[in-house]
């Protein structure tokens, strides 16, 4: 039982919170800018690499330099939005999907050009896990990631429910036309969306880097689970994305637990396919997601 918690449940929650943070950005751009942003994973990779360089330069802890890499990544995202996405605001959403698909490869090739493709570690050294109640083992970095993720999600909740711009964002996700009619500055809302989505994306990228390592495909590998989380939670529903991320992260890790007999229920090589199966299931049975999002 304790093995279940140490090797399946805790990694599941960890992975789930990383997915959840990334999926909030996906669902916000999907809801407010109305397109599936394929480049979102790459902004996470970029944030992780910028943090890596900052850690190398300053010797500080990744979490200390994270705000700076958030700011730098957001500047890049706003630049991209201004020159590559904004020209398509009035055209069909599929043009934006295509532009973001091209952007995904462009950002990645820039990262590969400057940093190379070797795998890097952001937090060197092995940390001894802290043992609770004699058996429950938690590594300090995992505790740190889970607590930071909870703080960030509470911050998103506060932003969306208590601030004016948060309400404007929700209004625009519900109905862009009505939002415009009520005098909401849509361009301002769009910029805020990039800021919020970018900051959370960088956080999720850095957490993944702390948990595993920094590599150029890390963001792309998260893309499918994040889309699945956003669809599972309902497009345009940030709370849905959080729940969806946790569910998908947990399911992926729990799927290789030996539920029946002694063999893993699912070959761990197929772990990455879980998100896709859940997504297809949702698209068939309930495209609006658990929290009644958009189709």
């Amino acid at each position: 039982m304790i093995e279940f918690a140490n090797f399946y449940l805790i990694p599941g929650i960890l992975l789930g919170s990383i997915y959840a943070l990334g999926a909030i950005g996906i669902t916000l751009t999907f809801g407010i800018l109305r397109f599936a942003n394929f480049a979102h994973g790459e902004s996470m990779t970029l944030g992780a690499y910028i943090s890596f360089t900052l850690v190398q330069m300053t010797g500080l802890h990744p979490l200390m330099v994270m705000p700076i890499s958030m700011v730098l990544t957001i500047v890049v995202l706003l630049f991209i939005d201004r020159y590559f996405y904004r020209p398509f605001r009035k055209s069909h959403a599929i043009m934006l999907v295509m532009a973001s698909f091209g952007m995904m490869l462009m950002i990645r090739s820039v990262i590969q050009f400057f940093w190379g493709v070797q795998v890097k570690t952001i937090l060197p050294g092995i940390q001894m896990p802290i043992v609770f109640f004699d058996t429950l083992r938690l590594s300090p970095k995992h505790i740190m990631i889970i607590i930071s993720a909870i703080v960030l999600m509470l911050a998103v909740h506060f932003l969306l429910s208590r601030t004016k711009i948060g309400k404007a964002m929700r209004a625009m996700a519900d109905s862009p036309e009505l939002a415009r009619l009520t005098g909401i500055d849509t361009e301002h809302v769009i910029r805020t969306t990039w800021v919020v989505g970018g900051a959370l994306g960088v956080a999720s990228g850095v957490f993944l880097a702390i948990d595993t390592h920094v590599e150029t495909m890390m963001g792309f590998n998260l893309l499918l689970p994040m889309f699945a989380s956003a669809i599972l939670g309902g497009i345009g529903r940030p709370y849905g994305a959080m729940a969806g991320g946790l569910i998908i992260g947990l399911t992926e890790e729990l799927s290789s637990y030996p539920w029946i007999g002694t063999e893993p229920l699912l070959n761990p090589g197929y772990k990455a396919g879980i998100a896709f199966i859940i997504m297809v299931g949702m698209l068939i049975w309930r495209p609006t997601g658990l929290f009644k999002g958009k189709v």
Partner: protein
Amino acid sequence: MEQFYGYFLYLISLATMGGIYAILTLGLNIQWGFTGLFNVGIAGFFAIGAYVSAILTTAPSIRHLGGYQMPYAVSFIAAMLVSACIAWAVGKVCLRLRTDYLAIATIGIAEIFRLILKNETWATNGPRGVSMIPKPFETLPEPWNQLCFLALVILTVFVIYLALEVAHKSPWGRVMTAIRENEIAAKAAGKNVERFRMQGFIFGCMLMALAGAYTAHYLKFIDPNATEPLTTTFLVWVMLIVGGSANNRGAVLGAFAMWTVWSASEILASRLPDELAIRTAYIRIFLIGFVLQIFLQKYPKGFLSETRPHPRAARTPGYSEPE
């Protein structure tokens, strides 16, 4: 003389791969150009075709499923049929939803195939891939074997091109254009939008599988990374957008032109010192991406813009062909 012969062989291989890309681009043209479907899993359907055809034709091997030694005609058709079945399943789930979902689902299905190809080692030999795939005409002396293969590819491109030209002008093609331009109006005119979209998606995926099968036989080897999956998909998209979507001639032109640029830049890059050569690979992808962005924003019609099919004057009395 020796040197010229080398250039000659290089030109043949350039044209062969260009032709294979032209098949892929024509397949995408049915989906995106005619029907307006956004498929970013091209590499997935390409891989299905490659593996099905490879497994059906190879000699028995202990490393992977095989030993059927079917004729090429059977394996090509099988590759297309398997791809069609999978396309049907994907289409059934996604075609009734917004186009974005098809994009997400197709990129997902391409990733799933990669997982299957890597994990099911009994059938595919996992990451080490299937080798010793027979190649049509390989018993002929050099350079005739290469030339015959090239002829096969070019002939296929030509036949597909002619078929698509006829299809584009036929009532079927006009319904496709109508659906792409105004789905609601097409529905109001009594057209079964979902069925037409499904047909477009399946036909496109079949052509992609055929291109995959050709590649497997051409290279005589296939593995899950034979062609870097996203780059393949992306390159085909750029070919279609640059050449001109919804224009079959544009698709073929874009495929050959972009493949020449891509392949020539690879050769130029390989002349550079090692460290730089690796890095220029990333610059190439970046520049191709930039070309796509410029075309999307400034020249969305591509080199050759769409020629709209017009109904024949003879079929509607008193109606003259608009010029």
